[in-house]
Structures are given as structure tokens and as C-alpha cells.
């Protein structure tokens, strides 16, 4: 280091910094370091593990090539787990998006009682997923739950013991927790829309419904994409909630990929196949995130406010 002659200091060409003076790439370092340490390094570890047949106990890890991948890909449990994952994803998107959008519109208006409600709506998001799941599990208990306690016939279903109902409960509880979050995103998006647009529409004689479909919805295009990306990619990792509510059951009715991964890895001690599923989860998540970005059109930075 000390042997090298001091490099002549030449000012970088101005074009490089865009005229703002000084490079700002260093600002990305803290995030990059954290991402590499906690995102990429474990990911590489999992990728390597998927080519082994480690059993968690042994301190040496046998390399077995594609064995784990072969066993996972030939297992009928994998298409089932994928199906369950996508079903939860689709149903929770279908359930959450319209409700969050409408609630977002509702609380975006500057009225005091709506601000109070907005705070109340936010409460479920503050609770831990495990706590929510335990509570719902207790409420839905077929013998000691809400239905049995209040004596309402329609509540006395086998909520978590019937395959269809259990799936519905999982989707409901997920939505119950995350609707506030997406409502908040939509509220922010709606408040960004210039009021002049609505004023112009009013002058043209557009009603509230027409305004919603012709101004609010198109203007929220990127908000919808952001919110959907979070929902879709987030739903891949639902584990704690399903684990506490149904443990993947009844049978394997709610055994999503993340649950399948846990059971293989931490219950059956098959770290190789579990890691292979983890890699599949990452790939599916990346593909979905990229696909949703594409939906936003070629140029995601294009302005929506042209002509204003």
C-alpha cells in the first residue's frame, strides 16, 4: 500500500455527478452491506445446502449433487404446496385490494371523524401475527370458541377442521391484518392526486362514481402495482400465521410452500430438500415481482400528470 506513488488528483468530469457536486454512491453502502450480509450470504448458503443432504445433526455436510432437487421435484407434495400458495395469494389479493382501495378513498378525505377511524383501522397491523393467530384459533374453536359460547348456529362451523373453510379462514385472517397497511398506501396515493382534476371533472358534470373510475383509479395505477407486489410477494412467506392456525392442516389443505419447507427442514431433518424449496420460493418471488413491474408499462418513470 505504502509503496504505491500517490495518484495525481484529477477532478472527475462534471457530467458524472450530474452537476449536483460529489458522488453520492456511498449513501448506498449501509443498505448494500446489510443486504449482502443478511440477504445474499444466507441465500448462497441455502443454495449450497440444496445440493447436500444435511440432516441438521451431523457436523459434516455431505454433498449429494442434485439428489435433493430430484426428490423435491418428483414429490407430489410440491405441486400441491404450490397450488395452495398461489390460491392463498390470489384469494388474499382479491379480498384485500378492493377493500383497501375503498377504505383508502374513505380515509383520504380530510374529515376529523375519518382520521379517528383511520387510527382505529390501523390497530390490527400493530399486533403480532402469532398473537392474532392464537386469538383467532381460540375464537374459532369448535367446542369452546365464539360459536359455542354465544350459541349462534352459523358460527358453529368446523372452521379450521374443514379443508375449504380452513383456507377461507387463513385468507380472512391474513387480510384482516394487512388491509390497514394497504389502506394506508392507497390513502397516500389518493392524496397525491391534484384536486384540480376533480374540480375539472365536477365542472364537466362527472358524478362520484365516474370520478372514481376515471380519475382516482387510473391515477393510482402505480400505487396498485406497489400494493399488489407487496401482497403477492409477501403471501409467499406466510408461515407463522398458517402454522399456528392450522399447522398446514387439516390433512395438507393449507400446507403452503413455506410450511412445507419448515416441515421438511425442521421436522423431518431434510435440510437439502427444504433448501431446494427455499430456492424455489426465492425464484417464484423474484419472477412475480419482475412480472408485476412489467405490468406498469415499459417506462415506470413516465409521468401521469402530463398536460397539467
Amino acid at each position, binding site marked *: 500500500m505504502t509503496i504505491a506513488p500517490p495518484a495525481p488528483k484529477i477532478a472527475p468530469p462534471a457530467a458524472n455527478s450530474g452537476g449536483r457536486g460529489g458522488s453520492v454512491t456511498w449513501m448506498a453502502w449501509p443498505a448494500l452491506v446489510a443486504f449482502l450480509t443478511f440477504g445474499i450470504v444466507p441465500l448462497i448458503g441455502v443454495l449450497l*445446502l440444496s445440493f447436500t443432504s444435511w440432516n441438521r*445433526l451431523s457436523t459434516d455436510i455431505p454433498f449429494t449433487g442434485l439428489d435433493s432437487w430430484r426428490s423435491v421435484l418428483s414429490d407430489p407434495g410440491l405441486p400441491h404446496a404450490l397450488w395452495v400458495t398461489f390460491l392463498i395469494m390470489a384469494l388474499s389479493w382479491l379480498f384485500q385490494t378492493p377493500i383497501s382501495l375503498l377504505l383508502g378513498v374513505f380515509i383520504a378525505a380530510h374529515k376529523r371523524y375519518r382520521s379517528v377511524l383511520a387510527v382505529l383501522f390501523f390497530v390490527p397491523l400493530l399486533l403480532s401475527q402469532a398473537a392474532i393467530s392464537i386469538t383467532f384459533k381460540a375464537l374459532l374453536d369448535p*367446542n369452546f370458541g365464539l360459536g359455542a359460547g354465544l350459541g349462534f348456529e352459523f358460527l358453529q362451523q368446523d372452521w379450521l*377442521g374443514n379443508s375449504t373453510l380452513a383456507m377461507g379462514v387463513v385468507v380472512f385472517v391474513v387480510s384482516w391484518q394487512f388491509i390497514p397497511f394497504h389502506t394506508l398506501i392507497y390513502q397516500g396515493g389518493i392524496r397525491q392526486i391534484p384536486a384540480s382534476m376533480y374540480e375539472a371533472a365536477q365542472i364537466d358534470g362527472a358524478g362520484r362514481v365516474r370520478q372514481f373510475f376515471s380519475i382516482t383509479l387510473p391515477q393510482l395505477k402505480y400505487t396498485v402495482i406497489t400494493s399488489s407486489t407487496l401482497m403477492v410477494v409477501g403471501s409467499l412467506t406466510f408461515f407463522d400465521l398458517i402454522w399456528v392456525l392450522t399447522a398446514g392442516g387439516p390433512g395438507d389443505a393449507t400446507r403452503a410452500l413455506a410450511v412445507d419447507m419448515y416441515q421438511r427442514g425442521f421436522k423431518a431433518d431434510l435440510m437439502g430438500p*427444504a*433448501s431446494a424449496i427455499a430456492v424455489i420460493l426465492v425464484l417464484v418471488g423474484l419472477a412475480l415481482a419482475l412480472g408485476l413491474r412489467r405490468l406498469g408499462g415499459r417506462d415506470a418513470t413516465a409521468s401521469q400528470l402530463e398536460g397539467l
Partner: protein
Amino acid sequence: MKRRNFLTLSAGAAAGAALAACGSSGPSESTGTGSGAEAGYWFLSGPPGEPIRQGAVDRFNKANTGGQIKVTTFQNDAYKDKLKTALGAGQAPSIIWGWGGGGLKSYVDNDQVDDLTDWFGQNAAVKDRLFPASFGPATINGKIYAMPCETVQPIVLFYNKEVFDKLKLSPPTTWGEVMDIVPKINAANIAPFSLGGQSRWTNMMWLEFLFDRIGGPEVFQSVFDGQANAWNNPASLKGLTEIQNLIKANGFVKGFSSITADSNADQALLYRGKAAMMLHGSWSYGIISAEGGSFIKDGKLGYVNFPTVEGGTGDPSNTVGNAGQFLSIYSKASDAQKDTAKKFFTSLLDDTEQQGWIETGGVPIVKGADAKLAASPDKDFLNFIYQVSSSAKYFGQSWDQALSPTAAETLLDNIAKLFQLQIAPQQFADSMNQVIGK
């Protein structure tokens, strides 16, 4: 401590596995094992066991100022995960508490625990005072790898006497009687059997008994021994069919597949009179006496051995369950720690500890413990358990504990589907045959 906490936190994610793998593979200054001659000892928290285990350690530490035992407690499921992660990372405690059988075998296969056969040879007195049956799950390939301890816990059929009196029924002694009284109990709007089906091993106990009563211990033994297509045995298929018949006849409480055993909701169903019977481990007695108010005091809890099955060849005295709990010595612990651990083993199940277990409704695995039972207010139940355990021609081990974790997980998965009527007996046998010997 820091490092271990970090591993714990990340254990939930697959990333944790990778980190643990990258961790030390050689001997390390681990915190789990304790330091110097201090031996680490991890066991399950919660009543009734925790205070008794803690008491045994406290008495040992008081009597031995040299090598001490350092205790860390965990909840059941957390313990299983934590221990495996610690073993994989080379940081397990000196004394490993466990259930013996397949789990112990997986430690043995990975050279994680010490062979204690010679030590028991030199200390015959330690070995001879315990139930011989308790050494079954501690013995792998003819060698003893664990010290049996604590209590024997057979699975028995509990019933609610009040419900049976009201309906003028008597507890079933044959499978035919079981099928016979199910509609009668259902007619009274009471569930015939309570079951915490989401826990899966609870369902498994039914199959363990049915297989044994129909075809004897040989049926499962052939699976355990790795015989090809062992699950296709006619006795096995009959057992699987019978359990589905019972499910179809609404033999189990509504919603059983969403009830967990951890929450003790299955026990509550029995003592609250919402279910008439429950097949469960003898530890249920302690739970019911703690949570069931005066249910036991009022003499409402009945118990019998599992019914016989007509035409079955299994001995009706056979039982299944836990023949004991097991303590192994971590192979990577230092010699001083191992000495402390062995010294601790010889101090186990002294009179105070035996008395402690008896008070929780458990029968210690010590020969002649029945003499101590008479003084207990729970002597009827304790004598029943002692008699079931000591007179059993065969004391079967829980299947999920006898098999390797990999095969056990497949088994539990298929049992859940079988009880959900999602798969037929033959499909069950087919998918189980594929994992025989794995």
C-alpha cells in the same frame, strides 16, 4: 451467550440452517455445554416435570461442590428445534434430555452421544434398580446410549364416569363394543371420543393400539426392521380401515382435526363432559387434576386399558407409550463434564424425586416403586399404571419416536390425511411403504 442467541433467532429461517452450517465444525468453546467441570443440562419447562427436575439438580449441586449442573429450560417444541440446531453447530449441552428411540438413533448415527454400555457394566447397581423395559428405547444396535429416568407413561383409555352413568353404559372392552356405544353417546349430544387431532401423534396412538391388538407387535416391528411393503400386512390394512370406520361413525369430537393437544382442549372436553372418552398418555391424569377442578376428587375419572379387537392375535395386556425419559451424554463435552454428568446420573430418582413424580400422578421407573404408591391420594390410578406397565407382555414405543425423524414426519403427515378421510387405507400403506428404512 451472544452467539447462541443469534443462532436461536435465525433458526426459524432456512438462513439459520445455513449459518449454523457455516459455524464451527470442530470442538468449540461452546456455551451450551457449560465450562470446566460444569455440565450443561437442558430440559423441558412447565409443570409437572420442571420443579422436580430442577429439585434433583439443586440437591446434586448442593451435595457436589466440584462439578455443578447448569440448567436451561425450554418448551417442548422449542426444545426439539433448539437441540438439533445446537447439535449441528457443535454446541449442545453435556446432558441431553430426550425420548430415546429413533431420535436417539439419529444422534448415535452422527456420533453425537456417548456409548454408556461399559459404564452401566461397571455400575450395575444403577442399572438394576430400574425397570428393564425402560432400557428398550435407550438401546441402539445392542448398545446403551442413554440413562433412563423419570416416569413410565403408558397410553390408556380415560373415560368420564358421570357420562357413562347417565347413559347407563359401561366402558368398552372390545372394539365391537366401541362401535356399538358410539351412536348411543352421539344420540345424547356428547362426543364419544375427545381427540386433539391437529397434533397428529394423538391420532397415531389409536393406530398403535389397533395394529397391536389386531396383529401383535410384529406388525410394526416389521416396519421398524425395514421389511419391504410391511405396511401391506393385512393386520395393518384392517387397523387403518377400522379407524376410518370409527371416524365415519362420528366417533371423534366435531372439529378434532383443528384441536391441538398442547392447548389441553382435548382434556377439557373430557372433564367438562363434552366427550365421553379419550385415549391419551398417563400424564393426562396430572393435567386433569391440575385443570379439571374437582373432577378427579369427585371420582368421575375412569380408566381402562385399550379394548381388544375381535379375532385379533395381539396380547390384550400389551401397551404402548413412553417407557421412560432418557438422558444421554454429549460426545463433544469435556471429560470433566462427562464425569459430572455420570455422577449426576447415579444421584437420579432418589426418594425425594420419586416422591415428587408420584405426587404428579407418575410412576417412577424404579423397581418396587409400587410400595411408595399406597400412601398417595392418587394410589388407585398409580397402581393401575404400575400394573399396566409391569404386566405388559410388550411395551411398545411411540411410532414417531421409534422411527427416524424423516420417516416419522411422513408417517404423521399420512396419519393426518388418513384421519381427514383424504386417503384410503391402501393409499396410506403405499405412501408409507416408500419410506420404509429411510
